[in-house]
């Protein structure tokens, strides 16, 4: 794709960059090189979000733990105890929490990034930088919350005497998958939010629905193939089952087979996540040129 937008070409003999500004039309390249050139800004935006997130809150960073933890408690009571939802032979609380940790990372990333452009409109109107930096920084800042909640998850595994399997080496990939999904959906909504503030009402609603169509309170093993694999078109289904498999896989109850690798699910989820992300990024770039005028 030929890029029609402002191009920065370093001219070697002068070492002075030449920028050409002209109207762009249609789809544009992602210009990730420019996002990279502005990586220091990205770093500072992440740093700001992390610093500011829990300022002037009484409980501070413990909010990162409270949110998923109490959801786990409620799920354990109502789904685990009362409804008797199966949990792949695992203790229900740790079964639910292993899913809620990546889920919370995804859901907060999505919510915050969807509102990020509108929240930064004073920046967008006053200074130039690759706009992708804003929603991307917002999602990245959620990694700190994830780390805190993840520490609690490890504590819970210790409590239940569950040792992780060698499959934990897949965790970075699974986290990346959650990140890509969160950013992908976030980019769509962040761009739409600039023009249609309806997004502010849609997103919480969407997150709520998405929570229940993701196997968090229940296992995806309740579905038969091929439906289970198709289910992974929801990338979070792959992420959540992947987390359980990598961390808790060896701990299935006595007499049950250890969790099998959700390979096909992960493959489907990866493809779906990449599709959402690439679509979101291009859509974002397409609307980007109108942000400063419309927001």
């Amino acid at each position, binding site marked *: 794709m030929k890029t029609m*937008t*402002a191009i920065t070409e370093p001219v070697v003999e*002068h070492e*002075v*960059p*030449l*920028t*050409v*500004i*002209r*109207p*762009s*039309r249609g789809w544009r390249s992602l210009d990730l090189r420019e996002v990279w050139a502005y990586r*220091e*800004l990205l*770093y*500072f935006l992440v*740093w*700001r979000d992390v*610093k*500011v997130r829990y*300022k*002037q809150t009484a409980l501070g960073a413990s909010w990162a733990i409270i949110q998923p933890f109490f959801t786990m408690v409620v799920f354990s009571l109502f789904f685990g105890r009362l409804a008797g939802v199966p949990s792949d032979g695992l203790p229900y609380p740790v079964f639910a929490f292993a899913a809620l940790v990546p889920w919370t990372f995804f859901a907060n990333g999505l919510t915050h990034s969807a509102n990020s452009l509108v929240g930064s409109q*004073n*920046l*967008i*109107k*006053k*200074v*130039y*930088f690759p706009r992708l930096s804003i929603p991307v920084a917002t999602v990245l800042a959620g990694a700190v919350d994830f780390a805190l909640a993840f520490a609690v998850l490890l504590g819970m595994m210790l409590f239940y005497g569950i040792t992780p399997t060698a499959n934990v080496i897949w965790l970075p990939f699974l986290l990346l998958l959650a990140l890509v999904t969160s950013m992908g959906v976030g980019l769509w909504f962040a761009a*739409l939010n600039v*023009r*249609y503030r309806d997004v502010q009402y849609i997103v919480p609603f969407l997150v709520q629905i998405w929570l229940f169509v993701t196997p968090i309170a229940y296992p995806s093993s309740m579905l038969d193939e091929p439906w289970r694999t198709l289910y992974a078109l929801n990338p979070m289904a792959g992420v959540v089952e992947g987390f359980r498999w990598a961390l808790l896989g060896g701990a299935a109850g006595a007499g049950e087979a250890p969790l099998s690798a959700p390979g096909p699910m992960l493959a489907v989820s990866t493809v779906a996540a990449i599709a959402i992300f690439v679509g979101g990024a291009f*859509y974002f770039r*397409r*609307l980007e*040129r*109108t942000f*400063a*005028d419309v927001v």
Partner: protein
Amino acid sequence: MSDLAIAASGVGKRYRIGTAQVQHNTLRDALASSTRRLWSSMTSPGDRAEPDHFWALQDVSFQLRQGEVLGIIGSNGAGKSTLLKILSRITEPTTGEIAIRGRVGSLLEVGTGFHSELTGRENIFLNGAILGMTRQEIRGKFDEIVDFAEIDRFIDTPVKHYSSGMYLRLGFAVAAHLEPEILIVDEVLAVGDADFQRKCLGKMGSIAVGGRTVVFVSHNLDAVQALCTRALLLDEGRVLSDGPTHQVLEQYAKSRLDSVSRKSWPEPQSAPGNDTVRLKGARILAEDGADTIDVRTPFRLEFEYWNLVPDTRLSLSVHVYNHHGVRIFNVGSTKEPTSQPAGLVRETCSVPGDLMNSGTYHLELIVLRDQTEAVLKFEDLLVWEIADNPDLRAGWYGEWPGAVRPNLPWRIDRIDEDGEATGRDAAGVP
């Protein structure tokens, strides 16, 4: 274009003026139509057929050599801010092309991206990064920035506890230490108190003489005159004039003088007024016949009206306001109006030079009958500009303080031990 910093050709920017609202009779209609709109804007934003648009900029072309300091002037809505936004890549042009050689730093606002919960120190880094500085650069200039902002003791206090003055100082301090090859500055000097403005202008001056390419937009014509070697006059989105600063400023002052400093209604039938009196015309004239009025120029206020009722005792009362809305003076034409036959009357008031400060003035005219009864009243009848006179400035190019700017005689004496005074008369610095 080896020594060109900026080359703009045919730059235009079109904005939409709110879409004409279609009447929806039912919720279903509204939903259907907005779904269609949503869909069409999702798939093809930008290229919707929109009849309601206007051109904020049209066919703007100019070239700027490296090291030149360009001032952009024009009245409100002339397109100055739009041009700056395009130059700093905040928004895209609709037509045309601009080639820019060099790193661009744009400063359209003081303290962009400051976060109120963060401390001064943290905000320096954040703001610096937003303006395009690297962490290393910021660290290198950190002490200088803190010094310039004079916030030493509060550097680790969240900026939400800062006074507005401290906030502005910090914002400007970060921006002033930006060192791009091309600096784009908007109106930032219009904020803060006189001392702060003086400091900012001083810094701007040193940047301007430091060989950097600067594009500077300001309403403060004095600052433009002092800082810029060249000026671009925009009017309704087009370049009206481009050349040496003094020449362009003169043309600007003249165009404003022409458009509003005279009004006339040659026909009594269409002239504003009532059965008693109708206004034929009003104008402002420099005594020396020049096109512009500066702070030294004596000028005349001239009014012509038709007295329609014989033997009426009419007089005029004039109120002059400055651009802050402060009434500078009120004068009446006569204490004892005499009866006049019906017909045309001209009344002229002479205003001496070395009295009024520079700035924009507007005038209210009241026609009185028998000294007490207002029979006719015109608010904002005339608007005119009094330019500064560069000869009178002692190195200071901010707004001259004070409602008026009289040139008063001074005497400077040396008193020796015997109490004898020897000295000279001096002209003050107005």
